């Protein structure tokens, strides 16, 4: 800040000319100019210099007049001091330059020379300065006090406004707290509940006042989730800011309140824990509903046993990494012939039977380590955690079979239940996952069933592998048909009277991309099982008939095609066959359909109708594998067959030399019986010349076997047997 001394020097330079002769207005103006320049740097006014000078001019005039006033009074000085403060010259720094200029220049510019004695003028000037200083001080003091008071009032008003806003906000908070539907409790760090809202009190069935006497730490419940109190202690020690759990509480009326509880730690401004805030949502009803739905979702409605879902969860848990269970045993039980019970006695009886089976299985498994579940129609499982050894599992299976063997009384009947059980037993941390365990048990159960049923089998890896192989083949069958992976081979049928070829049996093979060439024994049963046999059979028929057509140029060559039981019962058998023959332009007599004897056992007239229709059209029907199916010989008459194909088991005895006389007698008898019924006889499995000679001597009409030729592709067959190739 510029010093007033410096200003004075500048002024001295500026005012070097002699004062004007007339001290009147010019003198006062001159004084005001000097005054304003001296004062301006010390002020905090936002006036410009010119404005300040204009402001000071009337004050200068006042001082000039006061100097000469008669009688003299210094009172106007008070007003001048006050006016300086009013002009925002509020710094005491203003006084030295302001008074200095009055001291130095007021007498000079403010009065005509000689109008006052010098001493008098000096004395008056001094007294005016005293008055200016006093006026300035009083005004500054008043102003300071007034501003301080105004400021205090403003601060108070502002604080009041804040308090009112706080009060409004507090009121809002109270309303939120009071009217919330969620239960809110605030406890101190010792757990003592300081405040609880109405919702919380209602949940607990107590008054808000009663709630305030409670302590959070007393609310232990036997069903508390493990770890909930550890979480709470961590929070109480300030190590955790919040946690959320489902927690039960005991109500005074003995019922249990289930809540979704969130506890938060409230800290003070320094971060020290001071309160615990508990928010609770009553989930009692929702939980009950959930439990009921959960029970329904995991239990079988009919028997009340756990269902597949619950069993799968338990199996998953037992087999999961880190499971506390070391070994497991699984019995997979399927009732033998249950379908027959359902079909013959009705579903109501079947259901009662299942309920009884469930009860008996449960009675065999009283231990909590045993889980009995119904996982399908007539499929049950018993899952054993940590069995003593394999023996415990197998003895359980035996006990189950024994329990079921005692006849069950249903609807006035006594039913004896047989079942097949597949057992898997092993370490829980082994190679098998839940799906593999279940599949292995299923495969093993089917082995028990294939072995005659009413027994158990233990899983072994080789059987599983074979079954899995079968499974994989089954899965790939449909694609194989689409990708043309099947092909036909032909084996000649030789007329025994002259040794000429009479026909060819078409045999299907599968060129499997991984396993190579597969014979029909590997996949026909699978195709039959899945139903794929129908399209596959139609494909074979088409191929074979077309081939027969090619070969039939200039001669007659019959082609034999096998018909599976499933094809036999397919409604489209007759129209499909007609369509194939017509489209190839082949005579029906060029086709012989081979049907196994067993497929026709028990067939009634309706079921035989399609075959009759075909036979009447001229299609030959051969009864394949004759002699293996305990057929009622009297029935032969009713069948549309034209040929019997004698099973290879009869001809094997004729390979020996000398031939087995019993076999000779059999063949002789069958041939004479067949011929008596007007049927031709074909023998299979001819491997030696001796055999062939004997069979011819016994009167067989046609033969096939390695002695004549092995099955071969169509081209090779055509070359070897003089048939034209396409």
């Amino acid at each position, binding site marked *: 800040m510029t010093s007033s001394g410096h200003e004075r020097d500048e002024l001295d330079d500026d005012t070097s000319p002699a004062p004007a002769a007339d001290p009147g207005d010019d003198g006062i103006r001159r004084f005001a100019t000097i005054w304003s320049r001296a004062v301006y740097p010390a002020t905090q006014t936002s006036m410009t210099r010119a404005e300040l000078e204009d402001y000071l001019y009337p004050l200068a005039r006042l001082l000039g007049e006061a100097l000469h006033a008669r009688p003299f009074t210094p009172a106007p000085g008070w007003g001048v001091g006050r006016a300086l403060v009013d002009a925002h010259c509020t710094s005491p720094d203003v006084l030295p330059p302001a008074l200095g200029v009055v001291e130095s220049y007021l007498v000079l510019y403010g009065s005509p020379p000689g109008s006052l004695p010098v001493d008098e003028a000096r004395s008056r000037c001094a007294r005016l300065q005293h008055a200016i200083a006093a006026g300035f001080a009083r005004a500054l003091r008043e102003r*300071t006090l007034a501003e301080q008071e105004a400021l205090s009032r403003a601060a108070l008003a502002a604080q009041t*406004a804040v308090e009112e806003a706080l009060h409004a906000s507090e009121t809002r908070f109270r309303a939120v707290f009071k009217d919330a539907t969620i239960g809110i409790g605030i406890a101190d760090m010792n757990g003592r509940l300081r405040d609880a809202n109405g919702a919380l009190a209602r949940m607990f069935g107590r008054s808000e006042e009663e709630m305030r006497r409670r302590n959070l730490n007393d609310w232990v419940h036997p069903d508390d989730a493990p770890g909930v109190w550890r979480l709470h202690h961590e929070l109480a020690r300030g190590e955790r800011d919040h946690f959320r759990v489902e927690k039960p509480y005991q109500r005074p009326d003995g019922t249990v309140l289930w809540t979704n509880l969130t506890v938060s730690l409230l800290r003070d401004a320094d971060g020290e824990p001071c309160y615990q805030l508990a928010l609770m949502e009553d989930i009692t009803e929702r939980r009950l509903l959930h439990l009921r739905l959960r029970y329904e979702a995991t239990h079988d409605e009919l028997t009340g046993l756990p269902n597949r879902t619950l069993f799968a969860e338990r199996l998953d848990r037992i087999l999961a990494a880190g499971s506390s269970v070391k070994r497991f045993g699984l019995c997979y039980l399927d009732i033998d012939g249950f379908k027959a019970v359902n079909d013959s006695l009705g579903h109501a009886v079947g259901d009662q039977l299942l309920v009884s089976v469930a009860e008996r299985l449960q009675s065999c498994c009283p231990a909590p380590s045993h889980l009995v579940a119904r996982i399908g129609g007539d499929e049950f499982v018993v899952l054993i955690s940590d069995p003593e050894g394999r023996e415990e599992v197998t003895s359980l299976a035996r006990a189950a079979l024994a329990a079921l063997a005692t006849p069950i009384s249903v609807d006035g009947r006594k039913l004896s239940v047989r079942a097949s059980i597949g057992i898997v037993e092993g370490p829980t941390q082994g190679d098998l996952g839940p799906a593999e365990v279940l599949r292995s048990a299923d495969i093993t159960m089917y082995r028990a069933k294939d072995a005659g049923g009413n027994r158990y089998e233990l899983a072994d890896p080789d059987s599983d592998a074979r079954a899995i192989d079968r499974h994989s083949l089954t899965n790939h069958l449909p694609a194989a048909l689409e990708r043309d992976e099947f092909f036909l081979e032909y084996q000649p049928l030789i007329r025994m009277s002259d040794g000429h070829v009479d026909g060819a049996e078409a045999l299907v093979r599968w060129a499997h991309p991984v396993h190579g060439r597969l014979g029909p024994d590997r996949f026909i049963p699978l195709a039959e099982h899945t139903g794929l046999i129908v399209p596959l059979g139609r494909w074979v028929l088409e191929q074979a008939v077309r081939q027969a057509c090619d070969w039939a140029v200039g001669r007659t060559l019959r082609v034999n095609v096998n018909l599976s039981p499933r094809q036999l019962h397919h409604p489209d058998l007759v129209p499909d066959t007609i369509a194939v023959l017509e489209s190839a332009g082949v005579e029906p007599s060029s086709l012989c359909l081979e049907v196994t004897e067993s497929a026709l056992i028990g067939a009634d007239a309706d079921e035989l109708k399609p075959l009759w229709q075909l036979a009447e059209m001229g299609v030959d029907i051969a009864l394949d594998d004759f002699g293996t199916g305990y057929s009622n010989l009297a029935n032969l008459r009713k069948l549309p067959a034209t040929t019997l194909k004698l099973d290879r088991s009869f001809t094997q005895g004729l390979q020996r030399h000398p031939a087995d006389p019993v076999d000779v007698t059999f063949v002789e008898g069958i041939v004479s019986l067949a011929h008596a019924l007007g049927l031709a006889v074909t023998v299979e499995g001819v491997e030696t010349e001796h055999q062939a000679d004997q069979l011819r001597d016994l009167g067989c009409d046609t033969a096939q076997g390695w002695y004549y030729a092995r099955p071969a592709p169509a081209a090779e067959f055509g070359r070897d047997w003089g048939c034209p190739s396409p």
Partner: protein
Amino acid sequence: MERPAWAPQGIDLNVPSVSRMYDYYLGGSHNFEVDREAARRAIAAWPGLPKIMQVNRAFMRRAIRYAIGEGVTQFLDIGSGIPTFGNVHEVAQAVHPGCRVVYVDNDPVAVAHSRAVLEGQDGAAIVSADFRSPQDVLESPEVEWLLDLDRPVALMLVSVLHFIEDRDEPVKTVAEFCRALAPGSLLVLSHGSPEGGPRRDGGRSLRQVYSTTNTPLVIRPRSEIERLFDGFRLVEPGLVTVPHWRPDSPPELEDPVAFSGFAGVGRRPELAG
């Protein structure tokens, strides 16, 4: 638990307030010892600081007169602080009695005091709001009552934006105000800056003093201050050190420290986008 956004801010009179410090610089007594103590430290860090405030006040007066000369008689003074000698409405109404002024401040004490001072005033009012929330300002009942936003308004941002940190995006906020104002509106702006004045330490020690207030100081270079006029066209003489903006008396007479800051007036063009 954090205080919800809608709960009122408390008042802590133990923390220095920039508006009361400003009052102290201008010779007022609307301040507490804590404010004076901080102001004295600020002056020690930047001798002559009161002079800067004084020239800013003088600039404001000149700008008001300029605005009225241009026909703009509505004023929106943001960061108005403690009413002191030579307020906008005093200066403006002295020239043109029909002028209307809305003051805006976020300091509850300054607002309470302004409310007391302005009681009974027809053409002036105070809004308790923050520059950083233009909607609160523009949609306040006081603005609705006193200002016609379809006609030009002089937006006064005198010695205030150096209290707005970059993270609060002052450029964007000024632009938001600009969009609400009619073409022909003026932006009256001054901003502290070490450029132009004696360099000293670039304001570091002064920033340290203000860091003890609730309002840290952000000193910006001239180029950044110029960006605040985005959307406005600077009138003559452009953005200059504060005493050089249309001076009444020779600027050379000013203390060198008075040049530590820039001032300018921008006009919103008629066809502003």
